[in-house]
Structures are given as structure tokens and as C-alpha cells.
């Protein structure tokens, strides 16, 4: 039942559990979203600085290689041999002059073109390929690649709108802010969660859960819903920036707000306060900026901890979060150490992020048997989808679903956007 009638409400304040569990819907998402007119983050310029540098990544569940060619141009293609469909590049990262398939050694250039085939003319005039077989018709499937501030994006759709139009002004500004000078990759972490990928896409847009689920934020005074903050979306409401400013609330407001809800408000102090220290570094007071780009890219600033996250679906019941931690090349040694310490906050063992893995598995497990029942998305009110200058809201989730419905071709008539 994949049509507009699936939506119980025209403002996406109700989402049937079916959308997180049906294999048929997962397949449609891969085709119409991930292989459709969206832009997915492929990595950073800084990860492939030299000609021949490559990284293997994923767009949805499609394997992709991104590399820098001999002329210095970044190119990306589907990591699947045109011959037998085998994965061509097996390593996660490296430097190479060409990509050679293990199976029959079909050889591709850094632009993805098929350059050579062993025994193309057979041996002693026998065997091999027909003379009419054209190499140029059998290259690796290319992605379009564009970048903002050294952040590489790719799309499989010929007709996708230009990257900057897709991202919209607020996201472009946020990327330029976060990547305002040359970056240095500090390392990677990976996490497998037994849940549907959209639960994580929603989670990163859900301002409401942050200081409730991630009690560390409040317990140790790092971030509270009482701080000045909110959510900011692009014009189509498909992306979102969750933001907050440091030092913008006071103790009394915090006690009132959290006390009534039965949430603990007796702050504890850390023996090593540097863990939560915030050093402003972008000419503003933002200490939380979580930028979620539809469908599966997230750019994270929590204090001085900086990261890029890719959500990699692995079937309807599992996804991976692949996270790249970074700092800046001009970081003095003490700032680099500070970032390594604050990396404790994020990732699979993150003091303010580990709970997401558990919460998503709980939601996925319990919603599975009853697919016609539905989730409630009404914090910050139902109805219109718009930016909010407060934090107790999950409105951007409805923006996500609105664009999701459009791409899947199941947007109901009269639905909000």
C-alpha cells in the first residue's frame, strides 16, 4: 500500500509504523530517494588531497568510490564492475592509478571509464570479445559531484538541481561556517544500530529528545533546553539546523523548567571540566549546531567536537552511522588535544550520543508488529511546518516526511510542505 492514502494526517503529525518496516518501502526509498534527485555527502576534500587518492563510501546501500583524478578533479562512481557486478575497489582508502576488478581484471581509470580488458581479442585469434564491443559503453556508473567549502556531495540523478539550490542558503552558510579553514581528519568511528535508517534521520532533527534522553547534557550543564536556540530549515523544509547558544540561560529558569517534569536538576561537576569547556571559534556563540541534510548526511558541532556523519542503510532493519571526526589544520596542539577529549561526547561511546542507539532500537523493535499504528509528531504544535526559535519541538521531522512523501510520489493532495 504505497500511495498517498498511507498518511493519516496532511501535516505528517502521524507516521504509520509500516514506513519503518516494510521491505517494499525500503526498496522504493533506494530507487527514488538515494538513487534519485538528492545530494549525499561523499566525504571531504581533505580526505583525498592528492591525485589518485580514493575512498570507498556508500550512497544508500549502493557502494561508491570517490577519488581525485590526475588533473586534480574529484570524481565518483558506483563501485561495481560493468562486467559481473563485483565490487571493484575493495579497500576503504588508498592511492591508485586505476581501479582493477579482482574477478577478471577489468581496468578502470580514475574517471570511471573502462580502459582495458584482459584477453580482449582472445588468444591466437580465438575467444575474447566481439570487435563491436565498445569500452566506452561499459564504464563505471558515474555520479555528479559538487562541493561546498570542501564538503563533497554526489548524486546519481542527471536532473538533480544544483547542489547549492538543493541545500538552500541556511545549510550552505552553516557548511561555510564549519569548514571555514582547511580541516584535518582526526579519525573515524562506526556504529551499527538495529533499526530503520529513518529513525536516525528523525533523531538528528528532534530537538525535543536532546536534553531528556541525553541526561549528561543537563546533569553536567553542557546544554539545556532552556538555552536560546531553535530549529532552522531550508525553504522546502527537507533539511534542518538544530542550534543553541552557549551561556544563554540562567539557573532559576533551568530549575523551573526541568523540576516540574521530574527531570533531575541537581548539577554535578566533572573532575575534569575541560571535557565540557566551550571555546568559541567561529565568531559566534553557537555551541550546538546539528545540520541534517536530506536524506542521510549530518554535520555536527557539539561544543568544539566537530564531525560529519553518514547514515548508511543496511536493509530495512539496520543502519550504520559512519562518523568522521575533524579539527582544523591550524589548531594549536592544545586545541587538538581538547578536540580529542571532546570526542568523548559523540560517537557510539559518546557521553551525549550513546543513548540514541538504544532509543532507536527500542522504537524499532516495539513498533514492528503493529504496522498500521502510528507515531505522534506534534511537539511545537501540529499544522504548519516552519522555523522555531525555541527548543521543545520536533517540527523538522514533519519537514523530512513531507519531502520524503514527494520523492516517493505519495504526497497527498493538500498536504503541508
Amino acid at each position: 500500500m504505497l500511495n498517498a492514502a498511507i498518511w493519516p494526517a496532511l501535516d505528517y503529525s502521524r507516521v504509520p509504523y509500516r514506513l519503518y518496516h516494510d521491505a517494499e518501502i525500503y526498496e522504493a526509498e533506494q530507487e527514488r530517494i538515494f538513487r534519485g534527485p538528492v545530494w549525499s555527502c561523499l566525504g571531504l576534500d581533505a580526505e583525498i588531497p592528492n591525485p589518485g587518492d580514493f575512498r570507498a563510501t556508500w550512497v544508500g546501500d549502493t557502494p561508491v568510490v570517490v577519488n581525485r583524478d590526475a588533473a586534480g578533479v574529484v570524481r565518483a562512481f558506483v563501485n561495481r564492475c560493468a562486467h559481473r557486478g563485483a565490487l571493484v575497489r575493495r579497500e576503504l582508502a588508498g592511492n591508485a592509478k586505476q581501479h582493477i576488478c579482482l574477478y577478471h581484471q577489468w581496468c578502470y581509470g580514475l574517471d570511471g571509464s573502462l580502459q582495458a580488458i584482459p584477453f580482449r581479442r582472445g588468444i591466437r585469434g580465438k575467444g575474447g570479445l566481439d570487435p563491436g564491443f565498445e569500452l566506452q559503453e561499459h564504464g563505471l556508473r558515474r555520479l555528479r559531484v559538487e562541493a561546498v567549502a570542501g564538503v563533497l556531495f554526489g548524486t546519481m540523478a542527471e536532473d538533480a538541481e544544483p547542489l547549492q539550490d538543493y541545500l538552500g542558503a541556511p545549510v550552505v552558510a552553516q557548511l561555510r561556517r564549519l569548514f571555514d579553514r582547511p580541516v584535518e581528519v582526526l579519525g573515524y568511528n562506526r556504529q551499527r544500530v538495529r533499526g530503520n535508517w529513518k529513525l536516525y534521520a528523525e533523531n538528528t532533527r528532534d530537538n525535543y529528545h536532546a536534553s531528556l534522553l541525553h541526561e549528561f547534557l543537563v546533569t553536567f550543564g553542557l546544554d539545556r533546553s532552556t538555552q536560546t536556540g531553535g530549529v532552522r530549515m531550508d525553504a522546502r523544509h527537507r533539511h534542518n539546523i538544530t542550534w543553541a547558544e552557549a551561556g544563554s540561560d540562567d539557573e532559576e529558569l533551568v530549575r523551573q523548567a526541568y523540576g516540574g517534569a521530574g527531570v533531575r536538576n541537581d548539577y554535578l561537576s566533572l573532575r575534569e571540566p575541560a571535557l565540557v569547556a566551550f571555546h568559541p571559534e567561529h565568531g559566534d556563540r553557537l555551541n550546538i549546531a546539528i545540520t541534517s541534510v536530506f536524506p542521510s548526511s549530518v554535520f555536527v558541532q557539539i561544543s568544539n567536537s566537530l564531525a560529519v556523519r553518514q547514515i548508511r542503510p543496511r536493509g530495512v532493519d539496520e543502519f550504520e552511522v559512519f562518523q568522521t571526526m575533524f579539527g582544523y589544520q591550524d589548531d594549536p596542539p592544545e586545541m587538538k588535544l581538547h578536540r580529542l577529549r571532546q570526542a568523548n561526547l559523540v560517537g557510539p561511546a559518546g557521553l551525549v550520543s550513546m543513548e540514541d542507539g538504544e532509543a532507536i532500537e527500542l522504537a524499532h523493535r516495539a513498533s514492528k508488529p503493529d504496522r498500521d499504528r502510528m507515531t505522534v509528531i506534534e511537539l511545537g504544535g501540529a499544522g504548519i511546518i516552519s522555523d522555531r526559535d525555541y527548543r521543545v519541538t520536533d517540527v523538522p521531522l514533519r519537514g523530512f516526511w513531507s519531502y520524503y512523501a514527494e520523492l516517493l510520489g505519495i504526497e497527498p493532495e493538500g498536504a503541508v510542505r
Partner: protein
Amino acid sequence: MTLDRAAVQDLLAEYGARLDAEQYDEWLDLFAAECRYQVVPRDNHQRGLPAALIFCDSRAMLEDRIRALREANKFNIHSDRHLISLPRVTPTLSSPAGGGGSGGGIVEAPFAVYQTDQEGETRLFATGLYRDRLEPEGGVLKIRDKLVLLDTFAVPTLLATPL
């Protein structure tokens, strides 16, 4: 003087047993007054990338971790079982960072951690290698620096209780 192999094995056995019994204060007692504890994906380590999953470069940070585990963090309800394999002992003749100067050394031990959930289902959670610098403190062998090199780059669900 070289590391006493029996003392090393006792320390590793206590290490796993105290974690599996959720005796985290007693687990902290196995560390020196000045210590470091890191969980680093082996893949990062091999590529020379410093980012860790857990990075405690002081005893204070390690104690904060345990406090957060108790007071703030929420995680999957489970029990751990550490299987720690035979240690490979590399004595160091002089210890540059103090701590007695003799009787210390580097110890490597492979480990596996299984997690069991409330339904009684057990899964392999992680494998890796401990690389420990051990030093005597007050006549007792303590962990001065522990590097947990994690093979299991793709952490299942989340990492809360220490490896």
C-alpha cells in the same frame, strides 16, 4: 627486574572479573594514581589517526566516565563477559615516566567481550587487543596506560560499559 608473570595474570583476571561484576570502583582501583585509558579503533591506529571512542588522559577523566555511566548515561540493559587471553609480556628495563623504574613493563593481551541481554541472548560485542603499561605502585602492579585497540570498528548498538 622483570614483570612477574603471575602478577600480570592476576591483574588481567581481576580486570575482567570486576568489569563483568559491574564493580567499577574496584575496577578503577586497578589503575595507577596517574593513568590513561583509551579505546581506539584499530583501523584509526593503523592509519595514524588519533581519534578514540573513549579518551581519558587522566585519572580524573576516567572517574568522570564511570560517574557519567552511573548518574547520567542510559544504555542497553545487558551483562558483559570478558574473555582475556594469554598475555604477551615485554619487560622494560627503565621506565621513563617514573612509577618505580623497575618491575614495570608492556603487556599485550587479546580479548573478546560478549554481551547478554535480558532475553538471554548472547552476542559477540567486541574483540581487540589490550596494550598495557604496568607499573608497581606501593608494591602492587597497577595500570599506568591502557590502550584498547578495538578490532570491532562497527560498534554494535553502543559502547557504554568499559572494555
